[in-house]
């Protein structure tokens, strides 16, 4: 790869990293300047059907905490001590005015902290539409898809009310096409990471993917298409590192420094980081009813996480599939501190990996953690135990 191309790739990655780490949300503010009167819809982790907000001309933005980049000065007095950090810093973004651009805030029922966040948000920001989007929790009911289609219709009415703009089937179809393209590009990004991890470190893949949650998807598509051409031309060489799957990043995000230290010793060949962006694993089809297609895709063409019970996707079996399909040698089982579903699932995953004699490392993290020496030692010891086994 030529120097100019290398520089361009490095520049794009750096700009994505800056964007993800900048809690003043420059891309959102720029969008607002370019779209006077444009509305921004915030949504909490994990999955949100952004196509519906996009079709109404809104900018959907993922609210995913703030890591250690801000201090939860005000939020601490609103939330108990036993609550995860992502909830706390997400609220701080609102209370401190950093996310003052939001016209609405939606949380899915991924856990009870997330559902409570809708109430807390509503009490503190009465001018915003704060809602729980009740994604179906009985994924195996024959009636779930019809119900979800109705729930999406309700969301569509909400965003139409917020924007004062009616959306048509054509608008929705156009947005679905944009997002289908985005998901295809993300799948390509992950394919590269899986097949040639020495060309695409996880921290880079992560910031490239995460940036999409903060900018219009059309812009993100262009960005991804550009880097996907540049990455294979890189001149990196395969090194003797352990191929691992990282599991436990579906909601609260591990600090970049933590991912960095893992990949100093490992190739992270697959993961569930920001899985909501990649929740739908195939193109959303076109049956003539876009809301139905989105609902069906959520249920039937989707990945897995510990916050969804679906008999068709037993989680241990899904983890093993991820492990096998990525050609991994080991698993890093992480859980965010105070995350009930994550911590519960860790136990089940641990047992199946024990049964299969698959090496794994348990890690507990918090988005705001800063000291990594102990974790570094744990990872290094883990890797050495595999390499020299």
């Amino acid at each position, binding site marked *: 790869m030529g120097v100019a191309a290398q520089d361009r790739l490095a520049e794009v990655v750096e700009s994505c990293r800056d964007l993800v780490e900048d809690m003043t949300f420059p891309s959102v503010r720029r969008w607002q300047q370019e779209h006077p009167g444009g509305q921004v819809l915030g949504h909490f982790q994990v999955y949100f059907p952004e196509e519906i907000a996009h079709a109404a001309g809104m900018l959907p933005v993922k609210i995913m905490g703030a890591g250690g980049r801000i201090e939860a000065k005000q939020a601490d007095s609103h939330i*108990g*001590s036993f609550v995860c950090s992502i909830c706390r810093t997400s609220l701080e973004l609102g209370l401190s005015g950093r996310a003052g651009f939001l016209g609405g805030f939606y949380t899915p029922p991924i856990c009870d902290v997330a559902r*409570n966040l809708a109430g807390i948000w509503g009490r503190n920001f009465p001018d915003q539409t704060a809602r729980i989007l009740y994604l179906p929790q009985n994924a195996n009911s024959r009636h*779930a898809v019809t119900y979800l289609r109705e729930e999406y219709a*309700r969301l569509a009415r909400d965003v139409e009310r917020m924007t004062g703009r009616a959306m048509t089937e054509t608008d929705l179809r156009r947005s679905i096409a944009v997002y289908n393209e985005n998901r295809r590009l993300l799948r390509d990004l992950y394919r590269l990471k899986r097949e040639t991890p020495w060309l695409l470190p996880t921290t880079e893949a992560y910031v490239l993917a995460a940036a999409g949650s903060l900018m219009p998807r059309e812009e993100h598509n262009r960005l991804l298409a550009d880097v996907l051409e540049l990455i294979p031309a890189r001149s990196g060489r395969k090194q003797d590192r352990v191929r691992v799957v990282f599991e436990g990043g579906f909601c609260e995000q591990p600090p970049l420094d933590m991912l960095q230290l893992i990949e100093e010793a490992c190739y992270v060949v697959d993961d569930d980081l920001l899985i909501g962006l990649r929740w739908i694993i195939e193109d959303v089809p076109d049956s003539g009813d876009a809301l139905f297609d989105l609902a069906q895709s959520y249920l039937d063409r989707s990945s897995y996480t510990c916050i969804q*019970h679906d008999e068709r996707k037993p989680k241990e079996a899904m983890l093993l599939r991820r492990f096998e399909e990525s050609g991994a040698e080991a698993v890093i089982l992480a859980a965010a501190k105070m995350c009930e579903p994550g911590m*519960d699932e860790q136990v089940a995953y641990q047992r199946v990996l024990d049964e299969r004699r698959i090496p794994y490392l348990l890690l507990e993290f918090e988005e705001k953690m800063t000291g990594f020496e102990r974790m570094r030692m744990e990872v290094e010891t883990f890797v050495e135990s595999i390499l020299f086994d």
Partner: protein
Amino acid sequence: MSVKQATPLSPRDEILGRGRREGNRLFKEWYAALHTAAETGEHTAYVFVMGSAAEILKAFDFHLSFPEINALQTAVRKVSLEYLNRAEDYGYSTDVCAYVKADVGMHLDERRHPNGRLPRPSLVVATNMCNTYVKWVEIWERLYGCPVFVLDLPGQRGIGWSSQPGDEGFEADRRYVQGQLEELIELCETVTGRPFQVDRLRESMANVNRTAADWSAVLRLNQNVPAPFNAMGDGLTYMGMLSAYRGTETGARYMADLREEMEHRVAVGLGTLPEERFRLHAVGTACYSNFRRFLELFADWGAVFVNSEYLAYAGGGLDRGIQFDLERPLESLAEQLLLTGQRSMSNMFFSQDQLADTVRDWKADGIVYHAVKSCRTVSTGMADSREYLIRQRGVPALFLESDMVDPRLFSEAQFKNRIDAFFEALGARKLAAARGVAR
């Protein structure tokens, strides 16, 4: 606040304490039946206090085992730590819900519980009213390979959002719930090998109608001064009966008797303390690991809990009564489960205005929030709700943190300091208010 003088005891005073005595007796019977089921292999459904679907399960003669009640009983009997340690040794974090861990500890000990042996589950039903329920049932699914049914009850979407039968949105939700109930019935038929009998369902629904009407009346009787029962004391026994005997003739009769007892207590002006100085509304679960001491710290100040949000949601949402329409049983069941489910969840996520109304209607002097580490469902929004009520509605409120069943998280000294300070301020406030009136 004027305190009614107790009138002399009457010949009917033998009914005093009946609710507690009968409740304790029936609980023993209930655990004995579970113990027998464990021996005989009779069908048992594991269900939760919020959204048990007892109406349908009783129509198939399932025994009901409530993991939350089983877990809290380990704390009441002061052995919860043994179970918690076992689950933590198995791999569960100290930050995981202690109800879950107490239950896991028991299952790892072959379901030996202080109240008897518990049966294996033939079927598990969880609602989404607490998300941890869904994680919890997956543990049994793995341990026993039993069928799991998640009954999804979509709740209130946000503050100021309302939904009533007949609304387009409500009907969409109701159809979803009704469809799921039909699927649950199919599953019950498969598990038991017995056909569904709609008249059995009507029977259990009729019993719930009676129970709910009386329970709602019992709660309202606590609007009297003095309150005839402590909502966080004996109230919890009454609440347990709502779950354990929901849909049964025994449960309905018990609640009718309880109502009679409470009406009598009100008639003779009998409260729970020699002098009822403070009336409180509780938000949050009980502190079962230090149950008696928790109540004493308040009783020492002459304070009684006249109501509790806990009784509303953990009592299966029957606090405002239910009237099932037996002419259209499944549709009505879906409608009422949805309405009570929505209200119960709103009690946790969007409760601020309702809390202020309860304080007014039950003549409470303030609110006590008891946040528990184990239950982020009920506890996450408490600090914010408290701040809102103090700021927007002028309601005095105390915030305490501990746990339901993990004794390691209860600090008596910290509790006492906070409680004492709260009552000193509350006393001064009442005095100032009284002086204001006198002027």
